[in-house]
């Protein structure tokens, strides 16, 4: 395996690559919108950690957070922005390319990028 295969590994979106944020983005990618409670339940993160990660994703422009009320209960609804959706798709494609390169070391970097 040549170093050329891993030459572009630093092009992975490090913001999404962080495990907690990756879980949140992966979950939001498959739905239109989801609330805080659902994300907490599915990711297993603590309230504080989830809140902090969502704030970071919101600041990066990947997630849109809407705070409303359902009756008297506060409701925090999160959704991926167009930019966040595109960033996750690019991240997934890039990671797939790197995985292919790791599985087929005989392919050149250019062939991997095309595959």
């Amino acid at each position: 395996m040549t170093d050329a295969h891993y030459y572009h590994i630093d092009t992975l979106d490090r913001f999404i690559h962080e495990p907690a944020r990756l879980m949140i983005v992966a979950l939001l990618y498959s739905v239109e919108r989801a609330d805080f409670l659902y994300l907490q339940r599915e990711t297993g993160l603590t309230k504080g950690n989830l809140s902090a990660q969502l704030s970071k994703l919101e600041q990066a422009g990947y997630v849109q957070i809407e705070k409303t009320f359902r009756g008297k209960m506060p409701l925090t609804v999160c959704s991926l922005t167009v930019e966040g959706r595109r960033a996750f798709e690019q991240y997934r494609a890039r990671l797939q390319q790197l995985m292919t390169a790791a599985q087929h070391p005989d392919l050149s970097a250019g062939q991997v990028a095309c595959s």
Partner: protein
Amino acid sequence: MQPVPDGRRCTRRYWMIDGLPELFMGGALLSISIILFALRFGGALSFDTVLALIPVLLLIGMPFGRHVLDAIKSRTTYPYTGYVEYARSGWSQYLASILIGFIIGWMLIEVLPRISLSVSPQVFPLITAAIFALVMFCNGYFLGMQRFYALALFCLLVGGGASLATDWYTGCLTVIGLTGVWLVVSGGVTFWRYRRMSHHQEYAE
């Protein structure tokens, strides 16, 4: 270390987790079998018309049922375990479901009578049950929900019994009806357990 969730699997699993879809689907199957029984033996419609009604009922019932179910879930499920707005179906998905409905209808009207010439009609209840069992097994396998394996086994047992006991048409409707009853029971128990667990969690917090 927490594994990265498969988002699509998580949302599909979440849709089924409270047992309401089973309850609804079971009710629909039970209603269909009762209606078809009544139409067939009431003599109001011909056999072909009765068969053609199945995909029509499915086409009308599926999108309508989904909206109704979502409205119920927003009162019973989402306040306790979280709100999810599922990805909207595109036109291509709607067209695909309509196409599948027509293919099923065409198979029931055109292919089934031809098969019936070469295969004993007594096998039809078992084939119907095997189709249901396959759907249940796929649900169990892809969603990781073990109760669907029990449902699949039940379908096969009912199909085997119905193909031995009665004429094939009554056998098929018996399979559909009993699968509906079993789904209603399974969904009801799941929903009851889910609500109890959710209330316990709420008080614990």
